[in-house]
């Protein structure tokens, strides 16, 4: 309207048209290339450039996040503050640091146990974070150089399915979590029915669709991967049924299903390097399961 030089601002119509067309072309190109080619090279390059800056920023940001986390959990903090009041500041800081290292070690030990005992080769990766608005995905710091390929399942330290690898670059990969609205995971009920669990973009809710249910599904039942989905081994825990689901005819369609893996606070994940051609996965036998350690609860699910 009015510039600081006193005149009206010129409408940048030509620039707008050029940039809008460029955006549409890039989007079409990126989607059609399915995360490969020039688009993948650009993403990989951008993430390689940003990674050191993000790592540097995290050293500053982490204490701020801890403070905000603490403020968000004020009730828990009060009790801890009373205990800590008796200690001096230096000792408290040292204690917190040691505790953080111990937790990290415990977490990483769980991952090592998980990778050692898994039927498939696997790699532990650190979660770098995502971009926020309308983007439930996140980036991890391992990629093709560590043998990760698109479609690999991603688990947390408790061996629960967190998501699926979408795009892979030499030193990083993007993960679409099970709660993402574009993610569909084929599941098997305890009664042997096959269905699909789809994300809704809600961390606490998933949608379950079973077309040919043989009977009701009981409250608390765990839905596991069915071994019929390309690249995903059977038997991985995906979701929990929150109330008894009674089929309408043979159809079950419900959002009373929650993801078993807690996605908040996720710092490390393990990627199962499952080949889509592996005969032990993508079988016609939906009850085929992979050899994975039993679920542990240490450190949260």
């Amino acid at each position: 309207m009015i510039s600081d030089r006193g005149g009206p601002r010129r409408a940048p119509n030509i620039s707008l048209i050029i940039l809008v067309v460029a955006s549409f072309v890039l989007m079409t190109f990126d989607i059609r290339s399915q995360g490969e080619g020039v688009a993948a090279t650009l993403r990989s390059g951008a993430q390689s450039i940003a990674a050191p800056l993000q790592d540097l920023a995290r050293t500053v940001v982490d204490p701020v996040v801890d403070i905000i986390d603490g403020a968000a959990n004020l009730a828990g903090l009060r009790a801890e503050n009373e205990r800590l009041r008796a200690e001096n500041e230096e000792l408290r800081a040292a204690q917190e640091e040691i505790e953080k290292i111990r937790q990290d070690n415990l977490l990483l030990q769980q991952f090592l146990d998980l990778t050692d005992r898994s039927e498939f080769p696997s790699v532990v990766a650190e979660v770098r974070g995502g971009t926020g608005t309308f983007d439930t995905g996140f980036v991890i710091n391992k990629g093709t150089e560590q043998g990760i390929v698109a479609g690999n399942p991603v688990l947390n330290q408790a061996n629960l399915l967190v998501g699926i690898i979408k795009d892979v670059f030499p030193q990083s990969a993007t993960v679409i979590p099970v709660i993402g609205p574009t993610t569909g995971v084929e599941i098997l009920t305890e009664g042997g029915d096959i269905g699909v669990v789809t994300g809704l973009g809600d961390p606490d809710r998933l949608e379950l669709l079973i077309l040919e249910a043989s009977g009701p599904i009981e409250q608390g039942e765990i839905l596991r991967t069915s071994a019929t989905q390309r690249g995903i081994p059977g038997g991985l825990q995906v979701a929990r049924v929150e109330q008894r689901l009674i089929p309408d005819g043979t159809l079950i369609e419900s959002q009373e299903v929650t993801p078993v893996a807690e996605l908040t606070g996720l710092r490390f994940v393990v990627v199962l390097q499952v080949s889509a051609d592996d005969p032990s996965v993508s079988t016609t036998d939906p009850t085929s399961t992979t050899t994975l350690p039993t679920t542990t609860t240490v450190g949260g699910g």
Partner: protein
Amino acid sequence: MAPRTILVSLIMMGLGIVLQTTLFSRLEQFAIIPDVVLLVVILAARWLDPDPALLLGFTAGIALDLLGTTPMGLRALVFVLVAYVAVRYTDRTESNPLNSALIVAALSLLGAVLFAVFGTLFSLGSLSEVNVLRTIILVPIYNGVLAVLVAPVMRQLAVPRSRTLI
């Protein structure tokens, strides 16, 4: 337009991207977080000349697309359109923090709606997300609140001539 304005805008954009992908992406107890890069694009568009303002939006959008999982060009498209509206319909001389916050909130609302619509058109399923309405409502509010803090600082750095107005 002073090269300083462009330089400050680029630095703020870089800082915004780093904060968006580190600090804000880790505030997981808040299911919906501010879009600080969009905030910077809106504020910079009010002080930059029209073409650089649109280019800044495009560059910031591409950078975020490349660092996230959205199709390359989606955020660029949204940011360019928001920057265009900011260039065309906001007053450069506006220095009242409350008015700035309202402008940022309104343009962030536009950005969130555009993102949801284009995200759905390009298979992201944004409009089918359970949190779509909360996102569309809360992101502009967060950005508006942040604008009260960020706008005066950015204005001081980018537009030294206007210091007496603040």
